[in-house]
């Protein structure tokens, strides 16, 4: 059984499983968004965590001070996601029946004063937060390590837990892409949301049925592409950033057969059975063509009915900004699958120019 879970936890299998679970969550959000589901799902989650924790290797991982926030994160995100879906499901049922959302009921439209209602709540939140941090500081000691040495690195060398998703992304990308371009686009994309999304539906009340695409796109990026990667980076990456199952001992010498090949080698050496061309541009031509083809997808599909509808609603500029943000977000799962299935390293590899995609 443990072997089987270790086997399933490998990103090659656990990433598609996560995607499928995410699909079911979105597809059957009305089932997920019930109190019955919350009790059963919550009990199952706690029970699974408890059984997992009986294993000494998993216990070591979750009790490591840096990893405790991840356990808190798993439970709090599970609860908050369920809670929003529950609110959405309730409202959507009312909207279907032709009623107004719960938030628009007369008793919920009543207004209260900022002082004292809000300020008191904030004060208590501040006190509770301080108490929590003091308790945390007493419980877990900060590690006091040897003086910094530029010629030595701990193994595994892990970023703070909130950056582990980024570190996991870096395994599949060039540092310029995963370290600068993609995080930059995440920030810019999040800032751009209110300017791209001018649909007034869902303002001030929970709903899923009226905002399917927006909520699905956001939750996929947040739950699957960010939190899943953080959990993998924390729980399942051991020495040498090798994958270790949740119940696997962190053996420093675990050998993983891995040999990554660039697309240019696939094309010229394995495909055409000749040596790599000397000219850099000719060598990387297949990758460059593929990248250009990928980048013109939004232009091509603009002819589709659904896209035409969207362009009519929001205009060309918003459509293209949205589409490019989405297809750049999609490069992450795409690149991960290509790495796992074909050991593909880079689509365009120009280390001479410090440029790799």
């Amino acid at each position, binding site marked *: 059984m443990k072997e089987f879970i270790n086997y399933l936890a490998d990103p090659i299998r656990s990433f598609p499983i996560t995607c499928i679970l995410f699909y079911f969550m979105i597809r059957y959000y009305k089932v997920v968004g019930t109190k019955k589901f919350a009790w059963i799902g919550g009990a199952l989650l706690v029970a699974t965590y408890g059984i997992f924790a009986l294993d000494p290797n998993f216990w070591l991982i979750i009790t490591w001070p840096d990893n405790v926030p991840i356990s808190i994160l798993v439970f709090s995100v599970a609860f908050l996601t369920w809670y929003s879906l529950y609110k959405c499901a309730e409202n959507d049922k009312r909207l279907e029946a032709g009623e107004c959302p719960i938030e628009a009921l007369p008793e919920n439209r009543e207004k209260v004063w900022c002082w004292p209602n809000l300020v008191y709540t904030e004060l208590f939140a501040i006190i509770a937060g301080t108490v929590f941090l003091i308790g945390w500081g007493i419980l877990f000691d900060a590690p006091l390590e040897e003086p910094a*040495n*530029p*010629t*030595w*690195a*701990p*193994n*595994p*060398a892990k970023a703070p837990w909130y950056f582990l998703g980024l*570190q996991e992304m*870096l*395994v*599949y*990308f*060039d*540092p310029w892409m995963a*370290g600068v371009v993609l995080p930059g686009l995440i920030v810019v994309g999040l800032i751009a949301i209110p300017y791209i999304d001018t649909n007034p539906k869902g303002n001030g009340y929970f709903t899923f049925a009226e905002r399917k695409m927006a909520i699905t796109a956001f939750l996929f990026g947040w739950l699957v592409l960010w939190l899943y990667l953080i959990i993998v980076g924390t729980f399942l990456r051991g*020495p*040498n*950033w*090798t994958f270790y199952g949740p119940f696997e001992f962190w053996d420093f*010498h675990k*050998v993983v057969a*891995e*040999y*990554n090949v660039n697309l240019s080698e696939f094309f010229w050496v394995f495909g055409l059975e000749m040596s790599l061309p000397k000219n850099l541009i000719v060598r990387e031509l297949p990758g460059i063509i593929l990248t250009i083809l990928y980048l013109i997808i939004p232009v091509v599909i603009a002819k589709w009915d659904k896209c035409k509808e969207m362009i009519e609603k929001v205009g060309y500029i918003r459509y293209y900004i949205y589409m490019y943000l989405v297809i750049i977000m999609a490069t992450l799962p795409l690149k991960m699958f290509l790495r796992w299935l074909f050991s593909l*390293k*880079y689509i365009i*590899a120009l*280390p*001479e120019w410090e440029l*790799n995609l």
Partner: protein
Amino acid sequence: MSEDTRKKLNRREFFSYLSVAWVTFTAAAAGLLGMAFRFSYPNVNFEPEMDFIAGRVGDYEEGVDERWKNGYGVWMVKEEGKLFALSNICTHLGCVPTWMPAELKFKCPCHGSGYYTNGINFEGPAPRPLERYKITLTPEGTIKVDKTKIYRYEKGQWDHPDSFLSV
């Protein structure tokens, strides 16, 4: 201000006092700035030297030698009749890989890049091989490694006569 001082201080004197005051003030400000600037440089530099004498050719056996790794960040590798000084900085994001003698490879603990003993990357996200440093023989017959000069494989610089020693 009393009646005598107002008489004593005529226009010309006022300007000379003003000049002296301004010059003093400027000098003091410049001195302070200079001290602040000086403060940004450490008194003692603990960084390893950029070049060092790495013993004699006969000191090295076939394979990877780690003796200069902790002090200078250099692996001395002897294979196929060549001795070269390999940088220990991963070409992906600048971590320090670990030498794994049992697996005969360098493995980076940050994102899992792997390199053969000759420095060629083969696994993980590293886009290019490890860099090599300039290595020369001194007139006394000792080896001198100069880290200010690097040789990169993908630019075809590993054939450069200064990038290895024939042994």
